[in-house]
């Protein structure tokens, strides 16, 4: 009895936090139907921003650039970061603390300094600014976040399973593929989520390393601030939000195997 009382409280609290996360989104979606260009007060209902959005080549280009840069940097930084976290967890290195420090530093340096210093690096090595430089920069600042998140998972993991597997003559590769990887998967997913989130919302570093033809959504939006962010952006955000939620639900609906698995467990 006491247990349900506790779990109800936990549910209520969690829903409250979730409401806190979604409250601004509701307002934002509401104002995508607002007639005013400047979105200060409510002036009337309209669908026109959605129409404008369809014809706005530049916003759509920016969205595509954002997704390209975001997905590539997520895949690369998650792979590199996971491997590094495993290595750090399993082996002792001579300069362990130096390596740890190096992994933390990119988080500690203010974004603007990182952006400017990368700009200097790229211009000195004559790397033309564009999507490629954007991706290089994004991987760099996502890496540490992945290492830390996956590292937290590894720290809480018991060595027993890996030990058992290797006692049973599993090769290191088999041991990794069938034991370690499944065990740390939630950590990898969390790391990838953080990397993706950081990448698609980054403005400061992106600004300095972007070139012609590589404007991302945050760059586009921040530059708009001086004149007032167009409600088209609200419309776009609303569409994105709906698509994302629909995708999550769809992915769930398409996975019937889960239930069977759970029952087996």
């Amino acid at each position: 009895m006491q247990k349900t009382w506790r779990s109800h409280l936990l549910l209520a609290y969690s829903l409250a936090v979730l409401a806190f996360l979604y409250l601004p989104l509701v307002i934002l979606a509401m104002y995508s139907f607002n007639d005013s260009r400047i979105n200060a007060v409510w002036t009337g209902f309209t669908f026109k921003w959605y129409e404008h959005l369809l014809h706005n080549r530049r916003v759509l280009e920016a969205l595509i650039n954002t997704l390209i840069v975001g997905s590539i940097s997520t895949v690369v930084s998650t792979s590199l970061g996971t491997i590094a976290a495993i290595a750090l967890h399993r082996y002792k290195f001579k300069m362990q603390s130096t390596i740890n420090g190096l992994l933390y530093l990119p988080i500690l340096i203010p974004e603007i300094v990182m952006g400017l210093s990368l700009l200097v690096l790229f211009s000195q090595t004559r790397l033309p600014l564009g999507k490629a430089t954007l991706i290089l920069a994004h991987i760099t600042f996502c890496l540490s976040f992945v290492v830390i998140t996956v590292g937290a998972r590894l720290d809480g993991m018991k060595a027993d399973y890996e030990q058992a597997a290797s006692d049973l003559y599993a090769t290191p590769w088999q041991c990794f593929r069938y034991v370690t990887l499944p065990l740390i998967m939630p950590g990898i997913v969390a790391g990838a989520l953080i990397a993706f989130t950081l990448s698609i919302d980054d403005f400061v570093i992106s600004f300095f390393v972007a070139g012609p033809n590589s404007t991302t959504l945050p760059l586009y939006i921040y530059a708009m601030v001086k004149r007032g962010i167009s409600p088209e952006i609200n419309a776009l955000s609303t569409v994105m939000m709906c698509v994302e939620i629909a995708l999550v639900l769809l992915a769930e609906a398409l996975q019937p195997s889960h239930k069977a698995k759970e029952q087996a467990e």
Partner: protein
Amino acid sequence: MNKNGKFLIAPTLLWLTVFFVVPMLIVVAVSFASRTPYGQVVFNWTLHNYGRFLEPLYLSIFGQTLVVAFVTTVVTVLMGYPLAYYIAQLPKRWQQPGLILCMIPFWINFLIRSYAWVIILRAQGVLNTLLIKAGLIGQPLQLLYNEGAVMLGMVYALLPFMILPIYVSIEQLDHRLLEAASDLGAKPLTAFRKITLPLTMPGVAAGTILVFISSLGMFVVPDVMGGAKSALVGNLIQNQFLSARDWPFGSALSIMLAVLSLVLIILYYRTLQIQKGGADNAKDVA
């Protein structure tokens, strides 16, 4: 075995050396330089910029920033832990969708989400209107452009960095430990304090660090939610690059911020190491 280890860590180290260490060396060099009247950098190897950092004006900004970052971190733990806990104890198939549902708000541009908060909190905003209509207040409350609003904005911006690592830790908790504790007569709260919390500490530690560090460098939130009335380190550094055109001073401030954060992280982990002994004991007891 160690050869394998080196082989695994090499790509990341190489990457960070090329794209982080080398550019940072430039920043370190710049921090010992001076600015010309037109803002160009001249390398005359001076400690002047670090001297300026020690002035009471700038030290007080660092102090203020630490306070804001500390409060932000504590609040995010309090908000993030229960939510992460809730998701982690859902049936397996609902965990991933639950997590993604928490992340979706953060895939919408941060700036427009902050402006949405302004619409909610301002004098004629959604919240004040509701409170007045409900007869709870007569005059609109000034909810924006103060330190509370800045912290609210920071908590809102950084919550996922807390939720994700904590979830990762709780999810791997061995529930048999809790059952054993309860069989031995431990109250749920005691079990939580003695078993769950210590064993999920790696996640809390990672989350705390990510949130604390990220909040130190924030500058958009103080401007939008705080009405740019208080200066935090993030704004100070931003100003050196985007208005005072003083790259050397900005670089020196950034390096001091990084060093300070690194020291805090080391101290934090030391404290945790001591506690970890306690956690291992808990495991043995259970």
